[in-house]
């Protein structure tokens, strides 16, 4: 009897394998194979000659494309795009999480017509970036739309160039980027380092101390010995022309974080709220001290998903500012232009790999975490 069951079981496993084989092969080739292929392409000189040939001649040239992107003379624009990407991602994260959480708090009480309000706050999420981008472009036109709003309050109309302003704030020199990164990582390390000493976790103490030591020695010694990454000063910073795109993006995605938080807040037990009330906590204190810490897993998911979305701002930027607008650039746009307009496939591939690595920094830990959780259940 036991033999029959295990035989049936084995036969079922074979059927299962047969069913998923096509999907596994397709994902294997189209995701993993293609990623490997792009990484290889980024290490070649493909694009110089015969870029559109079906079987182009490529030569392996190592990391030259990457070196050019980070420290080459002509790729000034790509470096600004990277800086833009950091600002886009940070602002989108902070903006959508704050606005979405506040909207969720507003709707997290017995609100009449709640479903109406929820629908209104969430509908932009269903639309294409191209649709919303087209409309926002008109709203942010220099002499109309949003710039006319101050007139409603009797003020003179605004003249801000939402999508074409050339102003840059928070400027810094590209040569200082390694130092800035090192200081940033050091600041992030302070808390785990102190914690490892308090809990006497030997392994972590060693790892964090060594890393901090390396970073400190870079900042104080090696920085002055090693040649700078660029032979000349190059200024980058936060482009004010990206503000308009950020407003549109926050408008479109704050409903999404609202939906996430609303589900989270509704999931908290009513008794928690009542206990807080009995202890004399105000609404404000309830949200600050009890609700926010308890919806932490949702904040984590939101951060992951949104940083993923912010890497895909391609569509919105394309529709609002056009692909050729230098001030609102993004690595994904530059990758498109470099690859499909200039036919520089290898350089485009290197840009894609950089984008991919940034995404993977967020995604892989998240996937490992959720894989473990699935296994536990």
């Amino acid at each position, binding site marked *: 009897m036991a033999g029959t069951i295990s035989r049936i079981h084995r036969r079922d496993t074979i059927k299962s394998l047969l069913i998923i084989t096509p999907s596994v092969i397709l994902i294997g080739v189209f995701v993993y194979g293609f990623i490997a292929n792009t990484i290889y392409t980024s290490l070649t000189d493909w694009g110089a000659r015969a870029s559109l040939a079906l079987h182009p001649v490529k030569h392996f040239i190592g990391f030259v494309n990457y070196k050019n992107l980070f420290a080459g003379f002509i790729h000034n624009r790509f470096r600004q795009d990277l800086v833009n990407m950091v600002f886009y991602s940070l602002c989108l994260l902070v903006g959508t999480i704050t606005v979405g959480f506040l909207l969720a708090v507003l709707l997290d009480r017995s609100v009449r017509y709640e479903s109406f309000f929820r629908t209104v706050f*969430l509908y932009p999420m*269903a639309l*294409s970036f191209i649709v919303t981008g087209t409309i926002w472009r008109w709203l942010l036109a220099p002499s109309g739309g949003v710039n006319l709003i101050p007139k409603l309050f009797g003020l003179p109309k605004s003249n801000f160039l939402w999508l074409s302003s050339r102003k840059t704030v928070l400027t810094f020199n590209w040569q200082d980027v390694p130092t800035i990164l090192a200081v940033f990582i050091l600041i992030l390390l302070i808390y785990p380092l102190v914690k490892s000493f308090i809990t006497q976790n030997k392994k972590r103490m060693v790892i964090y101390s060594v890393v901090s030591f390396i970073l400190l020695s870079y900042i104080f010694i090696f920085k002055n010995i090693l040649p700078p990454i660029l032979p000349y000063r190059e200024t980058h910073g936060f482009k004010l022309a990206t503000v308009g795109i950020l407003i549109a993006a926050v408008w479109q995605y704050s409903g999404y974080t609202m939906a996430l938080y609303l589900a989270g807040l509704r999931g908290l037990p009513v008794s928690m709220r009542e206990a807080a009330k009995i202890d004399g906590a105000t609404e404000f204190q309830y949200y600050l001290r009890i609700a926010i810490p308890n919806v932490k897993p949702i904040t984590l998911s939101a951060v992951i998903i949104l940083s993923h979305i912010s890497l895909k701002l391609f569509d919105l930027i394309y529709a609002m500012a056009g692909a050729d607008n230098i001030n609102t650039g993004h690595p994904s746009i530059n990758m498109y232009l470099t690859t499909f307009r200039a036919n520089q496939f290898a350089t485009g591939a290197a840009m894609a790999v950089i984008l991919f690595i940034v995404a993977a920094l967020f995604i892989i830990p998240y996937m490992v975490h959720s894989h473990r959780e699935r296994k536990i259940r």
Partner: protein
Amino acid sequence: MRENILRINVKIGIRRKLFYGLLVVLAFVYLVPVYMAIITSLKDPAEINLLTSWSFPKHINFKGFSDAYALLKTNFFNSVILAFSATIISAFVGSINGYVFSKNKFKGSEIIFTLLLFGMFIPYQIILIPLFQLLKSIGLYGSLFGLILAHVIYGIPIVTLIFRNFYDQISDSIMESGRLDGAGYFGLYFRLILPLSIPGFVVVGIWQFTQIWNEFLWGITLTRKSANPITVGLAQLAGGQAVSWNIPMAGALMAALPVLIIYIFLGKYFIKGLLTGSVKE
């Protein structure tokens, strides 16, 4: 005493009014782009002026819509064909895959599942160049078929995930009783699981349809003009300088219409799809 209660009630009443006032203002802010799109699309080209961009059209003129329809007709129907065929195929792929990963787990199935899921989190720029080359070499570059293929393949992770989560909620005891009735592997799927799957198909169908309808990057890199989907058509229409703005606005509304209809009438299922990737239930 009674006066105090009265005063408190008045106070609460005022707070309540302020609260609803705030919500209404916020709702207006969120609806501004729709208002703008509608009034601009209904204006006469001569009336469109940035200084009066907020005001209502003096004469309602549907020319924007007829012009936009004439310009975007091909793109619109390309998107209809694309979204329907890719959605239907990927829904069935997701259903059978979900059946395996939820109800027929085997050693190693969890790790395979995780490796499949990775495909939905990558920035698609990383696969764009080989995809472009491959479609060119098999003669599918430029056509709608190539685009359908891409959407079906890169849709596998999310549709598998949604169906797996859905089948996890169907209790295993139903499977057991089916087995006792003599149903085999596929019998269980076709006679038991598939008939219970309709809500799963609705969630996946809506999710994939909106995603594919709204997609832009592949549309612009993998298709020729005759096969351009609506998003590409709209971007080109709005990007041109010469057009008067009633046409792109009407075009934007036209491109938004199918997904808005889905969202308004089947919003519950849309939100389910939306939360699948992020909140694990």
